[in-house]
């Protein structure tokens, strides 16, 4: 996975191995979009413990900044209600159109929306059932 002969590769492997005991294929990047800092921090922490690399965005604008900088994101997990120019549903639709290979999971305190659940790769009500969410994400990314 990392360059076997380089110092940087060894350092990166050391850091990755110490911080994340998951197998190498689990180092996929998840982008979490959530404006509540406590919810975001806890969700990010749970996913990092599973070995994923997690990028945190507090709004759709921040999420688009990340995506437009070409950070390789495998899965977007977004809340629906967020302040800013786009809500999570609009962000999800935009991502689906621009990045069709990216998985999109909606995680929201809103009532489950059948349309959203069908169009995307999952809908999770808050508060999250974390083990179920993790199993679902693992299945999507494997």
């Amino acid at each position, binding site marked *: 996975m990392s360059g076997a002969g380089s110092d*940087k590769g060894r*350092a*990166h492997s*050391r*850091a990755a191995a*110490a*911080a994340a005991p998951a197998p190498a294929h689990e180092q996929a990047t998840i982008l979490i979009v959530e404006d509540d*800092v*406590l919810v*975001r*921090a806890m969700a*990010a922490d749970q996913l990092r413990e599973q070995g994923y*690399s997690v*990028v*945190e*965005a*507090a709004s*759709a*604008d*921040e999420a*688009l*900044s*990340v995506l*437009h*900088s*070409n*950070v390789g994101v495998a899965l977007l997990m977004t809340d629906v209600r967020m302040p800013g*120019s*786009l809500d999570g549903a609009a962000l999800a639709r*935009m991502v689906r159109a621009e990045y069709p290979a990216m998985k999109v999971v909606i995680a929201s305190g809103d009532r489950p929306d059948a349309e959203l659940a069908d169009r995307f790769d999952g809908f999770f009500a808050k508060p999250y059932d974390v083990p179920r969410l993790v199993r679902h994400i693992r299945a999507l990314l494997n």
Partner: protein
Amino acid sequence: MVEDEVLVRMVISDYLRGCGYKVIEAINADEALAVLQHLDVRVDIIFSDIEMPGAMDGFALATWVRRNRPDLEVILAGSVPRAANAAAELCDSGSLPKPYEPQIVVERIRRLMATRARKPSA
């Protein structure tokens, strides 16, 4: 890690995680205070930008922390190079060797921001 520019926050947080730190991310002083006041987790260091939107900038946050949480170490960094160097210094006391030099942090941020700038805005 208190920083309102998502690409800076992401790169520096990842760098610090690479040295073995657990990093909680806040986009401004309000979020930082919410973490300090409510999250059931130990915080040892506040690493904050200076200019941030909201009622409190980094200086005001530092003042609040010194008055209310004098146990916390406060690091303020008002520019990307300063933040990268401060992170590298923290890495010297981290539990893992620093994954790369701070100049790489600066270059990575610069590259990401240049890539973003080439895209039409939403």
